[in-house]
């Protein structure tokens, strides 16, 4: 530090100098440090001004010291130069001194700037290297994860080129590292691929979805099939553009095979390898889920003749071998025709004809069965002659149910057995009803009503003009303990014959009227009209009018909301006593409709005299439109004629058996009022009707509109 004497002007300079440095940057410097800096630099400048000879480097050093103390603001230099220039100096060294100071400041600042730039570059470089090292470490971790993962991993681009696969995936496919490169994802298709897997793949690589999962089979290099649980994810870049696809494949072959075996066991008969009873019913029920309009099916119910004798005399082993041989023959003969052969149990087999073209085809199948079993079967030393009886049923899907069909085929089989062995017999509805009646109906029916075995389903009738739920038809059902659920066609005839129709008919009226009144209470005008079938015997009963009057009173149902359906055979002539009953009913305020019109006598003259207000065209008229053997345009002309005729008589027309939207649309066009059939809904529980009333306040589109009607 300088020890030179300080003059008066030097004191002033020191003060001004201290003031200059204590502002701006100076406030960030500790006052003690600042004081020392002021003293030191002021002394250097003083010596530069005063000492002989003139030493410009002292001024330069003062400038450098300012920079070292981080006085780097050019404003500081400007003020310092100003102050120095104002300072009186003995000779002409003033400009040189100031210049030296400025040059010292600038040179130091340049050095400092370069040093700092150097150090921040070094720092950036260090940071980048550190980041790269960390990235390499993380890449190494990812690579290890990829390579040593137990799950197969493959990476591809969005064009479907496979870019990399890990070891586990190579092992899964049985390939070497080079075998997969250059292959394309699309090459990995397999005939058993789950429907939808490739659609999902397309959506993924086009960026519409980010991931999907499927169970998918692949061919290994050696031709074996490996089943995998596949997860594919899409990798996008920072802008969201699809970049890569990553597939992860888990080998589930063992699990899959086990599942397949369990499924096979559950659906196949262990002795013969044929589909079992459960599998058969599953297939049959599937037929009924979404049938094509006019779809038909056939059943051959097969029972071996004399099997019990073989079993009893030659033993179960021989019996089992015989069954296996029979199964093999049936399978060989019928499977090529596209039919399903199943074992229902014991010596009972069934052949299912899906998409049957008609009775002839079903009969042909039955003949094939008999022919297949015609030759003797060689088992050990025994040459066994087996024969079989076959019950054949061929129906339109929409006319029956799986349970009723199998029961009918079974009963038809018994008729074949009774008629003598080794033959086939074709289902006959009348025979069937008689058989049902004989087997269980007539005996049990009286008690059934007391036991609460009857219940009522309701089938909707829609108004074609506005799609409104116009009416529901009450259809009685019998939950028979042995035969399952029976429809009215299976027991009503017996009920008429035995007289049970009277209490049963009354019960149906009570139940249905109560239900209809409840809907009206809940939904008001939106509730449908109620249609109830009236049996011939009921219509001839003098008590009916009084009974109905009482039921309407009890249930509170407005008679105008009730329509009774009679058949053409109810009234056979102008003097018929039933006419009086019918007029009595109309006087109560209920309306009448003729059901199944066109199937009976169809005497138009009587139609005019009957007190009816509605007519229901039998389902066979609409059904025949889909019969390839019948001319469709003629069918439509007949229906159109019936509609015009009914309208001429002032009757409301309902078409029954409507199964397609197209037919509904056409019926609407030709002016038919209401329609009923699977297109509009099957008979359902009352709760389902309530749901429809509530959910379809505006009705449903009948045709020419949007969706297809519910089935």
């Amino acid at each position, binding site marked *: 530090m300088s020890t030179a004497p300080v003059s008066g002007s030097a004191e002033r300079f020191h003060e001004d100098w201290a003031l200059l440095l204590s502002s*701006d*940057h100076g*406030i*960030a*410097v*500790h*006052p*003690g*440090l600042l004081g020392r800096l002021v003293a030191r630099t002021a002394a250097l400048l003083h010596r530069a001004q005063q000492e002989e000879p003139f030493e410009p480097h002292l001024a330069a050093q003062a400038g450098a010291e300012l920079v070292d103390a*981080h006085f*780097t*603001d050019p404003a500081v230099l400007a003020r310092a130069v100003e102050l120095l220039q104002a300072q009186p100096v003995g000779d002409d060294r003033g400009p040189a001194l100031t210049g030296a100071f400025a040059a010292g400041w600038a040179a130091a600042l340049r050095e*400092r*700037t370069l040093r*700092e*730039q150097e*150090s*921040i570059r*070094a*720092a*950036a*470089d*260090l*940071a*980048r290297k*550190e*980041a790269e090292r*960390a*990235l390499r*470490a*993380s890449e190494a*971790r990812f690579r290890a994860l990829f390579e040593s993962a137990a799950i197969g991993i493959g990476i591809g681009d969005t064009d479907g080129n496979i870019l990399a696969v890990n070891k586990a995936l190579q092992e899964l496919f049985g390939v070497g590292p080079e075998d997969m490169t250059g292959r394309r994802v699309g090459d990995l298709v397999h005939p058993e691929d789950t429907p939808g897997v490739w659609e999902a793949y397309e959506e993924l690589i086009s960026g519409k979805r980010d991931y999907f999962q499927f169970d998918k089979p692949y061919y290994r290099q050696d031709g074996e099939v490996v089943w995998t649980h596949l997860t594919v994810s899409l990798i996008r870049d920072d802008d969201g553009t699809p970049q890569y696809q990553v597939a992860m494949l888990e080998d589930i072959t063992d699990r899959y095979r086990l599942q397949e075996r369990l499924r096979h066991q559950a659906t196949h008969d262990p002795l013969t390898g044929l589909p079992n009873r459960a599998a058969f019913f599953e297939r049959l029920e599937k037929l009924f889920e979404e049938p094509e309009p006019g779809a038909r099916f056939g059943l051959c119910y097969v029972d071996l003749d004399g099997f019990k004798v073989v079993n009893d005399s030659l033993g179960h082993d021989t019996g089992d071998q015989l069954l296996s041989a029979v199964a093999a023959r049936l399978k060989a003969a019928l499977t090529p025709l596209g039919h399903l052969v199943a074992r229902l149990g014991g010596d009972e087999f069934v052949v299912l004809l899906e998409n049957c073209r008609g009775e002839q085809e079903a009969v042909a199948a039955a003949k094939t069965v008999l022919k297949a079993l015609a030759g003797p079967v060689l088992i050990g030393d025994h040459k066994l002659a087996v024969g079989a009886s076959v019950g054949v049923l061929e129906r339109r899907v929409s006319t029956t149910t799986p349970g009723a069909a199998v029961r009918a085929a079974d009963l038809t089989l018994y008729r074949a057995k009774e008629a003598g062995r080794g033959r086939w017999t074709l289902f006959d509805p009348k025979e069937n009803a008689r058989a049902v009646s004989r087997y269980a109906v007539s005996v049990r029916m009286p008690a059934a009503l007391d036991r609460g075995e009857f219940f009522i389903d309701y089938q909707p009738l829609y108004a074609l003009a506005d799609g409104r739920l116009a009416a529901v038809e009450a259809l009685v059902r019998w939950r028979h303990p042995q035969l399952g659920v029976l429809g009215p066609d299976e027991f009503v005839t017996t009920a008429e014959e035995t007289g049970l129709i009277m209490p049963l008919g009354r019960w149906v009226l009570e139940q249905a009227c109560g239900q209809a009144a409840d809907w009206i209470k809940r939904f008001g005008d939106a509730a449908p009209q109620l249609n109830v079938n009236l049996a011939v015997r009921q219509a001839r009963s003098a008590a009916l009018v009084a009974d109905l009057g009482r039921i309407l009173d009890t249930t509170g149902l407005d008679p105008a909301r009730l329509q009774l359906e009679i058949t053409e055979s109810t009234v056979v002539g102008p003097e018929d006593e039933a006419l009086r009953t019918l007029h009595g009913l109309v006087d109560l305020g209920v309306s009448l409709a003729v059901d199944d019109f066109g199937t009976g006598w169809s005497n138009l003259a009587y139609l005019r005299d009957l007190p009816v207000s509605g007519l229901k065209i039998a389902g066979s008229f609409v059904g025949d439109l889909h019969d390839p053997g019948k001319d469709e345009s003629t069918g439509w002309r007949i229906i159109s004629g019936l509609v015009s005729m009914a309208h001429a008589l002032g009757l409301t027309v309902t078409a029954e058996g409507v199964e397609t939207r197209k037919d509904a649309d056409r019926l609407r066009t030709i002016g038919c009022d209401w329609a009923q059939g699977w297109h509009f809904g099957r008979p359902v529980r009352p709760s389902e009707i309530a749901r429809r009333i509530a959910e379809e306040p505006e009705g449903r589109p009948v045709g020419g509109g949007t969706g297809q009607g519910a089935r």
Partner: protein
Amino acid sequence: MRRPSWVPEGTDLDKPNAARVYDYYLGGSHNFEVDREMARKAMALWPELPQIMRSNRAFLRRAVTLLAERGITRFLDIGSGIPTFGAVHEIARAIRPESRVVYADRDPVAVAHSRLMLADDPWSAIVQADLRDVDDLLGRPEVTELLAAGEPVGVLLVAVAHFVSDDEDPRKLIATIRDALPAGSALVLSHASSEGRPDQAEDHQKLYRMTPTPLTMRTHEQITAMFAGFELVEPGVVYLPQWRPDQPEAVGEHPERMSGVAGVGFRP
């Protein structure tokens, strides 16, 4: 979502960085063109910024000096950035030569710079950590070692808490640090104020939204609330120049123009 720690942070030199911009305001050259461009824009809008930063730096000096005078020898400087001049260990050691300082910053370049500067200093350390991941920060070996002795620690959050958004809840983060501190420890806090120059605040925040470190200016009340659990020393939370000035005249006529508030509190 925070990245898992084994995925490296990038060093993005194409974007302005708060630490290097701050250095430029203070007349340093530890910065790149992208930082200077950002700083020039900010200064065009708000010419006093360099002065504000100097005020902040002066506050740091006065506060560390106070802590050292009160016997604190351990410091944790969170968001240390690039200490252009007057680093905490230099200030503290002028009074307490045995002082130890752990610096923390989330910017890899600032950390690398400090590492180069501190390479020969056994009593200083730098960790790359983020205030917003306070558990990670407090769990670093350098930090646990600093706290382990049970001696008071001076924690500095100088011009850093305004880089924590409301969603990230700076009060909670500070409370977590507080609970980890031994009795007698101190919090040194300065924070951009939304009230000093309300006319400038919005534009300034908008500018920082373009950087990786957006800025949230807060009110005096909000900033005072960050001292929950600390006893503030006189004069409490005030504008930067008002906090224990070296000379009364150093406060100036418009301390609010310095637009930052600051305070020091001790943990009982």
